[in-house]
């Protein structure tokens, strides 16, 4: 101990560099690689399709359409992908620890989007929305949504899942579905009583800086990007870095990882298993909440039913990436968002198909991947515990 003293400065500098690499540069690099990788693969796919079907419909030259749409499709794919990734994390974290799918997670996402709406609407009603600093305002909305959804997830675990721990796996699944219905109808009733409204519109139109699209000149044309799309990506990146640090860099994160490896042994090692499970739900739930608020700000209007589709897509993304694997959820979310954006953009040119077949093709990709990699893109083969 004593002779370590003189080198403290050097060690901490080196460890700081290592810390920055591990917890900031590496995750950002990972996200960058995933985004670019998905974009490149799908761009090649789009041009390949244009080669195969140069003119799928009269007067439509597919290559020209792809040229025109490419930046827009990629940006839309990134935005959707990050939202899916953030929700998928909630599924994957809970699965990693408890080995069951928290199907109420889509409603935790929905509650996050409604809480974000409430925060923004209340500030707007009070008349001081325009005076807020943009960064502070967005942080406030996201943090309140995170806190609310996180606590909600903890409460759900305590009420609906903990008493059923050890029961056959189908039982908590049913109670998750029940909680889902309860949350939808609770929010519906609450909004009907307090606002007499069903479609909850974020007052984003009242803010000049949030309403005015940013014009990006890419290639031959310009692409309008909504400021909220930047907010979604930035917010997602920051929270994902924070999550990575929390899981891999803190004592509590180590506790969660220990519980996910072996609950009983972790308990024997003096880890409070129940607390770790609650914590997992809190983290997963707050991610769902943040995703909800970001999604709500981006699309403008949410309803009590808004969680179902993103929830089911994010679950798919989690499975695609390898359920139980945090990096896999990120990859799966980004890949699915991107695939959807490209399919939406390209299917319209094929007569007899069209955008309503987007999900069919997206899920066919899922099935194909699962045939060749049954545990997902990044999933490790997990032996069934006997």
């Amino acid at each position, binding site marked *: 101990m004593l002779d370590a003293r003189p080198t403290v400065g050097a060690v901490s500098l080196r460890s700081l560099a290592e810390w920055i690499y591990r917890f900031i540069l590496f995750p950002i690099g990972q996200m960058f690689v995933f985004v670019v990788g998905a974009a490149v693969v799908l761009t090649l796919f789009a041009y390949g399709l244009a080669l195969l079907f140069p003119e799928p419909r009269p007067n439509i030259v597919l290559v020209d359409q792809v040229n*025109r749409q490419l930046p827009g499709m990629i940006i839309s794919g990134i935005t959707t992908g990050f939202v899916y990734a953030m929700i998928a994390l909630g599924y994957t974290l809970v699965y990693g620890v408890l080995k069951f799918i928290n199907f109420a997670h889509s409603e935790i996402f929905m509650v996050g989007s409604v809480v974000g709406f409430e925060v923004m609407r209340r500030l707007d009603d009070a008349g001081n929305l325009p005076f807020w600093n943009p960064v502070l305002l967005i942080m406030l909305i996201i943090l309140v949504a995170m806190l609310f959804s996180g606590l909600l997830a903890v409460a759900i675990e305590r009420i609906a899942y903990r008493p059923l721990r050890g029961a056959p796996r189908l039982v908590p699944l049913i109670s998750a579905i029940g909680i889902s219905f309860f949350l939808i109808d609770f929010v519906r009733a609450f909004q009907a009583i307090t606002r007499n409204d069903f*479609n909850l519109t974020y007052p984003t139109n009242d803010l000049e800086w949030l309403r005015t699209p940013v014009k990006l000149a890419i290639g031959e044309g310009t692409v309008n990007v*909504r400021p909220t799309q930047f907010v979604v990506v930035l917010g997602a990146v920051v929270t994902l870095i924070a999550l990575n640090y929390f899981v891999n860099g803190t004592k509590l994160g180590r506790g969660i990882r220990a519980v996910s490896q072996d609950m009983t042994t972790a308990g024997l090692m003096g880890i409070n298993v129940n607390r770790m499970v609650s914590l997992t739900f809190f983290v997963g739930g707050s991610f769902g909440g943040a995703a909800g608020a970001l999604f709500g700000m981006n699309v403008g209007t949410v309803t009590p039913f808004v969680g179902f589709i993103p929830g089911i897509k994010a679950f798919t993304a989690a499975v695609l990436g390898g359920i139980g694997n945090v990096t896999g959820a990120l990859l799966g979310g980004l890949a699915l968002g991107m695939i959807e954006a490209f399919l939406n953009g390209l299917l319209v040119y094929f007569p007899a198909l069209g955008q309503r077949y987007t999900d069919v093709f997206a899920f066919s990709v899922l099935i194909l991947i699962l045939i060749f990699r049954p545990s997902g893109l990044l999933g490790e083969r997990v032996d069934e515990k006997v």
Partner: protein
Amino acid sequence: MQVKRVLLLFVVVALALSVTVATAQDDAKVIKIASQSPLSGPQSILGTAIRNGAELAIEQLSGPLTEMGFKVEFVPFDDQATPDVGVANANNLVNDPAILAVVGHLNSGVAIPSSEVYDANNLVMVSPANTNVNITDRGLPTVNRICGRDDTQGAAGAAFAASLEGVESVYVLHDTTAYGQGVAEFFASAAEEAGLTVLNVEGTTETANFDGVIQPILALDPDLIYFGGLYPQSGIFINQARAAGYEGFFMGPDGFDASDFAELAGEAGVGTYYTTVAAPPTFYPDAAQFIEDYQAKFGEDPQPFAAQAYDSAGIVLAAIAKAAEEAGGEAPTREAVAAAVRATENYDGITGTYTFDDNGDPELATYVILQVKSADPAEWSSNEVLDEFQAPSPLYAVMQSGEATPEATPGS
């Protein structure tokens, strides 16, 4: 022990109540009129308007029946804009023999399967809002409507779009429901006939994030986007499409007609054109009293279809009274009511004068083209009427042109 006693008390009270209700039903000659419309969910503004309009009519217009010793009750059902729920409700309400008529629905996709149930039980339905052609083209004797049809509505929209300066190409989007897809396809075919280029007809079930849907539209750059669907979807779509850089016109059918559209679409929605079969109540000179009564009873301005629901219920009440008279003051059968409704001639309602043709369409229906003027939902009723005209139903048009009596449509 305490809990058990309280429970027992509850059971006893509940039993006693049910007995009193049952006897009350036996005593009076009760006639019930049901309504089916979405009272919850995204389209509840319009659905509630239908319920309120019908309720007001039953309160004000059931005089002749009460004089004959009947007690007219109103039973509103919530179809949640969902076909399954509509059919389940239909199966429920046909089992109540006191229910003699249904006012509803809002959504054609719900009305079509539900009306099959009504028809099998001879229960008459008068719709204030369903515009899909298959509502009446099936030729069911129990199914009627007082509004226009999507073939005419789509064509009216297309004719107007063609007359707009600078509009040469259109992109048609719909919500894949019977209503939205139906009207969108009529619009598309009429637009093509009017010389417009229809770039694409596309369906989407997306309700929140339209980013992906918008990209190919931007690449095709149409002069006008027609959205066959209802305001919860189209309002959000228009908001996002404008933000994504689309600069042309927006147009839609009567599904756009609700004040929430302004809220959802925001500034992007100002200037949007829409056709409707249910002009705003202020448009009808005879509806002034109705607007006043509606505001007094429900504390808000009547939304679209409220006045039409009022007239639908009025037609039903008049027909029941006529059938009851023919039955010698007894409660009429459902068959008699259905026949009396279909025989309605020159019913003088607040939104027009109604005579049904053999398929249950009004012989003449009013179509209006409006433009959104403000992003403020409170200003919705100030939307500008750009054009209005009356068009005959297909059957009536044939009859007028002097040809032989038209054959009933296939499937009847």
